[in-house]
């Protein structure tokens, strides 16, 4: 357990090489392909961060937009007074803080309840920001003027993705990672072998939330003008879940496998069928779900998996298990 297996070393090597190649991308292309790459890298970072939490816990979080928005606003509010690295730090703290609060409030929620709560979170924050700005002065839109080009954004997102991966890898090898796997398998068992399920979840949610907030912070310069409805756009949360599910959340690199094809296919559709985007996207999506049942579900099978296999017993007699 303590020494790193060969397979992982190989993966590490391949990963490093990949990152090196990716880092050179802006030197060979710019314009559209770079923009597309920024979008891909953005979702690669967010989806992987999302899966850090939602993968092992099987709790689908729709709070990505909330964290993202918090990060964006961290930059928007302080851009004129602090240097950018400090803003990133603020985003980290703000994201983690928010996640901790939410985590503590929703500890007892499971399954769909958690989903819905997080779904509303972005909307709620958006409204609170708006409400605060309405009632306590200030404009609603905040300008973010920087000298960052797309290349800078791309590099920052790439770096973020790498950090997320490394963190994920470290977590997997730690007590925390084991605790998560146990919780994901059976929460009641987890509690009875001594896992503090609540704390574990909160910590992980905070880590995941902080990363997503950083992604938001990095993207702020691209928005130029930050408004609550753009920063806290609920669509972000949905896209993250969809892409991550598409790729699978069992492995660290799973979400990545979803992000790249999804972004590219969707871009192809919106590029070639600007007037039928929605219809074709819908059909493409249905096709993916039906044609690739194992590509999608095979890996995801455990995502929501309940306890043990259904074959063993048709019904969990929960009264006996002291749930």
């Amino acid at each position, binding site marked *: 357990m303590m020494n790193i297996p060969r397979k992982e070393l190989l993966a590490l090597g391949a990963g490093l090489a990949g990152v090196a190649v990716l880092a050179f991308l802006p030197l060979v292309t710019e314009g559209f392909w770079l923009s597309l790459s920024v979008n891909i890298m953005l979702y690669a970072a967010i989806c992987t961060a999302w899966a850090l939490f939602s993968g092992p816990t099987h709790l689908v979080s729709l709070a990505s937009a909330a964290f993202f928005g918090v990060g964006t606003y961290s930059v928007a509010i302080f851009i004129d007074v602090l240097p950018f690295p400090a803003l990133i730090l603020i985003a980290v703290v703000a994201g983690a803080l928010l996640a901790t609060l939410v985590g503590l409030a929703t500890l007892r929620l499971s399954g769909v309840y958690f989903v819905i709560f997080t779904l509303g979170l972005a909307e709620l924050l958006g409204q609170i920001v708006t409400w605060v700005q309405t009632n306590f002065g200030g404009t609603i839109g905040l300008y973010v003027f920087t000298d960052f080009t797309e290349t800078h954004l791309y590099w920052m997102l790439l770096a973020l993705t790498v950090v997320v991966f490394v963190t994920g890898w470290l977590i997997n090898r730690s*007590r925390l990672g084991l605790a998560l796997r*146990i919780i994901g398998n059976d929460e009641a068992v987890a*509690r009875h072998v001594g896992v503090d399920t609540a704390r574990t979840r909160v910590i992980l949610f905070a880590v995941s939330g902080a990363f997503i907030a950083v992604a938001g912070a990095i993207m702020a310069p691209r928005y130029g003008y930050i408004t609550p409805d753009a920063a806290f756009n609920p669509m972000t949360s949905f896209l993250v879940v969809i892409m991550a599910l598409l790729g699978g959340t069992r492995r660290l690199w799973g979400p990545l496998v979803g992000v790249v094809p999804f972004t590219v296919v969707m871009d192809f559709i919106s590029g070639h069928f600007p007037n039928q985007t929605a219809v074709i996207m819908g059909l493409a999506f249905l096709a993916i779900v039906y044609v690739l049942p194992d590509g999608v579900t095979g890996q995801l099978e455990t995502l929501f998996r309940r306890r*043990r296999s259904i074959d063993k017993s048709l019904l*969990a007699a929960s009264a006996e298990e002291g749930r």
Partner: protein
Amino acid sequence: MSVPLLTINRVRKAFGGLVAVNDVSFEVAKGELLGLIGPNGSGKTTMLNLISGALSPTSGNILLSGQNIAGRPAHKLARIGVARTFQLVRVLPSMSALENVIAGAVFGHNRLWGAEALALARVLLERVGLKGREEVPVAAMTYIDQKRIELARALAGNPHVLLLDEWLAGLNPSELRVGIELIREISEQGRTIIMVEHVMDAIRSLCSRCVVMNSGTKIADGRSADVLADPDVVRAYLGDDHA
């Protein structure tokens, strides 16, 4: 009996109007193997849930080595040293046998990590008879083997008290024999055990002492042979031809 390891003091648990455990008191000495028996729905599982922290009592105290543990959350109790198995077997389906047991070693009372946890898990798997099957995913294992995993996982935490909820149920007679021997061994190594069981052969051959519950109350407590001959127990639980 010197200072008891576990003291149940007028513990009560009500679900709405239904009193599942009704002011029950008993003590368990260190190293004892106590049988907890009673008709279906008499409150045995509920009692174990109260001790293991899955439920918190409506009233009453539960003392472990003199410390009141009533109402503490399950994970804290697991750390303090209470481990259990479940009436319907619960393994961690996507993990291997070894990992299942490591789970107990890492987070239980033992709190081992790394090589130590691994070594302990191997030893325990061997003890429950699963040597050589360490890497098998538990989902593919048979019922009895899953029960073995559960036991090893509970033991891996090195608990002060081990709670077994119908651990022997569903085993066929030859498996039952193996299971009984396993529990006997564990008990003989000094582990304190409370076992809930409907298999009387096991109770007779393993437990020197039994507590009998009926509709939430304790109706008998004493040497197994005496208790099992008690007319009340026979009437409520065993049925006539067992006498």
